[in-house]
Each structure stands twice: as structure tokens, then as C-alpha cells.
């Protein structure tokens, strides 16, 4: 009881100080330090990177180095989960964990309807990442959830995790190599292959290819993770 009482007081102090401190944000927010962001980056982002979606401009061009390691986090998580889950990864995923009779027919039928739509929507989000909200990471997650629905439709689906993981690793190497192609054209690592002076349509080629690669990598990674979990569940 005293423990809870002390923690409430401590959190109260923290909250009070934090609230007072955040009053300063208003002062800080309008400092001249940020003028270069408003004048430089935001209007020039489309011209420099060829991406109408500034988030994609940041993810795939200005700060591509970070995105590579964010994909790396998923890669490590996949290998870690597969190692930690007790099954041998060579073993084939024999059957879906749900009993056929326990899954309602209505759900299966609707899954059949929804599955192609989800897959299409996922690809749409991946390919249009540079034009509208979305991109490789988000689209990859949608594609992966479409594949998850596939397990409901086809109960006897077999998945070879080892193959998925291997392809995922190769895709990661391919992403690294593709992202560093700019060393030949622009003399520096991890930016668009085409120079900033090229037309946005040309620059978009690079963005689309990179988005597709990242999207597939994310989808494969998530696929491997939930297949490992399914095996664990059985």
C-alpha cells in the first residue's frame, strides 16, 4: 500500500513538472532555427526526391540509412523468433492450427472474398507509396495480413519457413545493394540513383522499385513470424 502511495506521489511530481516544462514548447516551436525546414525542405522535397509524399521522401531518400536498419530490426526479429521458438526450421508447417470444424463457414467464405481485395490493396499501397500515404512498410504489412487470411481458407496449407527466411535475407542484401547504387551515379551512398535535377517521373522509378523490395521483404518477414507462431501454438 505504501509502495502504491509513493509511486502515485512520484508520478504526480513528474506529471506536474512535465506540464510546466511543456509550456516552453510554445516559445521553442517558433524559433528561427526551424526556418530552413519551412523554407527549404518542405517546398523542395518533391523536386529533390521525386516523391509527392514527404514521408516517403524522408524514408527512402533523406534518411534511407535509418530505414535500412528499421528493416534490419524486422530481419533480426524474424531470425530471433525462429531461433527461440523450439521447432526446427527445416520441418514443414504441416497443418493450420485451427480445426476445420471450428472455423465458421461464413468467415471462410468472406475470407475468400476479401483475400484478393486485400492483396490488391496491399500492392496498391506499396506501388503508390511515393504519391499517396503508404509505402513499403505499410503495404508489406497489408500483404502479410492477406496471406494470414489465406491460412483460414486453405487449412492444409504447407509453408516452408526456411525458404521464406532465406529469400528474405537475400532481399535484404538486394535492398542494401540497390540503395548503394547511387555511389556510381552521384558519388555518395543511400540516396536516389537519379540526380536531383532529373524529372520527378524518372526519380519515381527508383522509389517504386525500392518500395516494392521493402514491401516484399516486410511481407515475407511478417509471414515467417506468424508461421513460427502458428507452429508454436499447435
Amino acid at each position, binding site marked *: 500500500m505504501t*509502495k502504491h502511495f*509513493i*509511486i502515485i506521489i*512520484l*508520478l504526480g*511530481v*513528474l506529471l506536474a*513538472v*512535465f506540464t*510546466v*516544462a*511543456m*509550456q*516552453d*514548447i510554445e*516559445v*521553442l*516551436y517558433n*524559433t528561427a*532555427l*526551424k526556418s*530552413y*525546414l519551412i523554407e*527549404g*525542405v518542405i517546398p523542395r522535397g518533391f523536386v529533390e526526391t521525386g516523391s509527392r509524399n514527404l514521408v516517403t521522401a524522408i524514408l527512402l*531518400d*533523406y*534518411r*534511407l*540509412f*535509418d530505414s535500412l*536498419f*528499421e528493416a*534490419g*530490426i524486422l530481419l*533480426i*526479429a524474424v*531470425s*530471433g523468433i525462429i*531461433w*527461440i521458438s*523450439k521447432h526446427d526450421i527445416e520441418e514443414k508447417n504441416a497443418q493450420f492450427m485451427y480445426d476445420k470444424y471450428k472455423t465458421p463457414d461464413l468467415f471462410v467464405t468472406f475470407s475468400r472474398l476479401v483475400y484478393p481485395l486485400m492483396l490488391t490493396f496491399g500492392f496498391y499501397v506499396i506501388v503508390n507509396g511515393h504519391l499517396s500515404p503508404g509505402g513499403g512498410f505499410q503495404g508489406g504489412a497489408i500483404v502479410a495480413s492477406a496471406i494470414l487470411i489465406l491460412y483460414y481458407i486453405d487449412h492444409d496449407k504447407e509453408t516452408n519457413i526456411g525458404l521464406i527466411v*532465406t529469400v528474405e*535475407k*537475400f532481399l*535484404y*542484401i538486394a535492398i*542494401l545493394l540497390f540503395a548503394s547504387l*547511387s*555511389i556510381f551515379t*552521384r*558519388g*555518395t*551512398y*543511400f*540516396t*536516389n540513383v537519379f540526380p536531383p535535377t532529373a524529372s520527378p517521373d524518372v526519380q519515381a522509378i527508383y522509389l517504386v522499385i525500392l518500395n516494392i523490395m521493402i514491401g516484399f521483404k516486410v511481407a515475407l518477414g511478417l509471414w515467417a513470424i506468424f508461421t513460427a507462431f502458428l507452429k508454436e501454438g499447435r
Partner: protein
Amino acid sequence: MQFIPVYLIFIPVITALFIYVFKNKHINYLALVAQLAMTILLIMYFTAYGDNPEATLFVFGDWDARVGISLYNDRLSISFMFLTIFTWWMVLIYTFNFRETDHNFLFFLMFLQGVFLGFLQSNDLFNLFVFLELTTIIVTILIAFKKTGDAYRAGIYYELINVSGVLFFLLGIIILYNSFGTINLLAIKAGLEGMEDLTALRMAYIFLMVGASVKAALFPLYTWLPKAHGVAQSGISALLSGLIVKGGLYLFIRINDMFSPANYSYSDFFFVVGGITAGIGVMFALSQKDIKQILAYHTVSQVGIMMMGLSSLPTNDLFYGGLYHVFNHALFKSLLFLGAGVIIKAYRSKKVADIRGVMRTMPVVSILMIVGMLSITGAPLFNGFISKTIIKYGIYDQEWKYWILFFVNIGTATSFIKMSQIFFGPRPMTIILKDAPQRLSMIIIAFSCVMLGTLYIPISSGYFGVDLSYITPFGLIPLYDYIATLTIGFCFYKLVIEKDVTMVRYIREFKVSFETANYLMIGYVVALVTYFIIL
């Protein structure tokens, strides 16, 4: 030449991926090739850029440094990179014989090296955050690698505590980005110049410091360290204690450097935190009976001593004492952990009481272990002596600080007198596996311990430009000092520890639950808030 930092990050990453994909015994030797290539590249880089850190600033994609991600190397980060590559060499050599077929292990190990090298070089707060997260995840997997119940528990405990610490770090980044519109360390440093002293910025400093403190295992947040380091395999324990913990201290140095224009007076607070960490670590180490737990708690206490040095301003010699201790500790603690690994494997027990007669069964290993013990207790001519003496000189005028260090030294001596029992006694019936690479890596580390202990004057003046010639290990006074410490330690051991009085037993049984650990973390944040904002 300019791109060497990028190669240093990606060579180990790509090597790791190849090792994982091909699962071939011969491909595994690629790790050693990559290691060799990285060593050569780093030496080339140092000779080219060691003198002018301004030229090392390198922005990916040639964007404005405030938008893109930049890498920046000064002498400090290059020295940490040398240490990183050296430690990885040692761990790779140590584990290679029985890891030859284990692709998973090598994959995580090599990937971690690339990530850690990136962490050391990054000049961007969010990039640091990404690398911190990656380090946490990989280390969690490496801790849980044996897949036993204890290993899982320690791994999850480590993951949860560190992730919550790193989330505080993220909160600090958000405040700074809101204030400056950039997360480049150098740009923020320039922006802080002439900025008025605002509470929001102090809040950001506090949050960043909480992240660094969790990573560095400072006093109330150290609870994950003994669990994690005690459970992991010996090679991994050596890596964690020798290097990964120092990541937090490195972050501490970098953040303080970034906030240096703001002139926050952090020295006293972190000195006290360091002192308490050192004291608590020694106290728990004295009560433990498990070799690896003893060594892990000593890591806590040594981190405290480093913090006592690093909390001072970077212009003082005291700061370099702490920095020097970071490197020395990396050497002798990894030596001790590697040696303990060999002994534990031969005796199939971790208890000090069960292991006897190591001197007879494994003379080489015991001599190397004794080198490590002499270093950690601060014997003259070994490297621990140098850094402890610099710290001692730095705090000579303040008596209470001096006493803290004195008691920690006596505790360390007592604890290793207790541990040295394992060398004596009759030769037991054990099967000793001759493993040449393990011996080799330990011999190299022990050799560098002695080298740093005797050649410290040219090394420190040549590298950091600090003159250490006032420290003389050859006189009689350091020797008397050391013998006196050992004598007091021996008496303390005979009178208190060996009899296992109730107090010692109580400390040994004392466990911090996960709930309490979280309360302690909140308490630590409030303490920082009280010191930096309310007072």
C-alpha cells in the same frame, strides 16, 4: 577513404547475412576475413583522419546535415571502434572452435558488431535510437540463446527494462526535434549556443540521460545486468560486460558534449550516482557464491567507478581517468569472464565452493585469471592501477569522494581474495579439454592488460594528448598502498564474509522484482527532475 565508416558498418552486416543464408562451415571463416578487412580499414581511417575530426563529418546522400543522417568521428569514437573490433576478435577466436557449425550464433554476433559500430559513429539522435533498439533486440536473443528457463527470463527482463529506458530517450528526442527542427547532434549543439535556459530543454536532457543510465546500468537501474550477464554464455558475457555496457557511458559522454553550451552542472549528481552504484555493486558481489554473478556485480561496481570519473568536465584529468578505466575494464573483465567460462566448463559448476585446485589442473588459465584479478584490484604495473590512480588524484581534495573510492577498492580486493580460493587445493578428477583458440584469445587480452599498465604514458599522450607522467607504478608507495588494501580486504574476508553472517545472507537473498525495478526507474527520473529542475 571518406566512405570507410559506411564499410565498417556494412561489412559485418553483410557477412552475417551470408553466414546465415549459406549455413556452410567454410563460409563461417568469412567472419575472420571480414574482421581482418575491418581492422585494416580502421587503421587506414585513423591514419588519414585521426587528426582532423571536422573532415570526418559525412552526410548520406549529400543533403543538408540538418535533414540527412550524418556520421562523425573524433578520437573518442575511433578509440571505441578500436576497442569494439578488438573485443570482437577475441570473442570470435574464443568461441570459434565450438561455434564453427553454429550459423545462428555467428549471424547475431556479426550483425551486432555492425550495429554497434554504427552506434558509435552516428551523429544523429534518431539514428542512435534505432541502433539502441537493434542492440537491445540482438543482445536479448544472445542472452536467451541457450533456450533454458533462466535464459528466457533474463532475456525478457533485459528487453523490457531497456526498452522502457530507450522510450524515455525517444521522448527526449521528440522534445528536441520540436525545439530545433533537427536531430543532428552538432546542429543542436550549435543551436543551444546562446539559447535561454528553458525547462523543456532540461526535461529533454533528463529523458536522454535516463536512456543512457539504463544502458549503462547505473544505480537504481542496474538490476538487469547481473541477471543477463550471469546467465549468458561466457563469450557473450565478456562481450556484454566488456563493451555493450560501455555503450551507455559513451551515450552519456556524447549527450553531455551536445548539451555543453547549456552548462548544466551535472558533475555532483552523477558522481554520487556513480559512487552509490560502485558501493552497491561491491556489496552484492561480496555476498554472491556464483562465479559469474560475482563478476557481473563487479561490472556494476566498476561502471560506478567509471561514472565517478566521467561525471567530471571533459577538461579535467579526472574525466580521462574514467575514460581510461572504460578501456581497462573492457580488457580485464572480458579476460575474467573468458577464464571463468573455461573453468566452469571443466568443472561443470559455477559455485566458488565447488571449484578447487585450478592451479594444478589448468596452470595457464589460472595465471591469466590472476593477471585479470591483479588488474581489477589495481595492482601496480597492471592497467587497473593507472586509471584508479588518476581518479584518486582527481578527487584527492574532497575527502568524502576519496572515502567512497577507498571502500570500493577494499570491497573489490575482498571479493577477489574470496574468488582466489579456486586456485588452491588438491587436483580434482576432471576432464580438461584443450582448446587452443580459447587460450590464445585470453593470452592476447592479458598481454594487452600488462601493456596498457606499463606503456600508459606514450599511449595516452600520443592519443588523447593527456600527460600521465605523474603516475609512477614503480615506487614503494603504490606497493604499500596495494598491500595495505589487500591486508584490510583479507581481514574483512576472514572476519565477515567467510563466516557468512546473517547480514551477508540477507543481501544474497535480496531480489529486486520487475515491479520494484520499474518503481526504481520512476524514482530515478524524479530524482533527476528534482536535481535539475526543481532545485
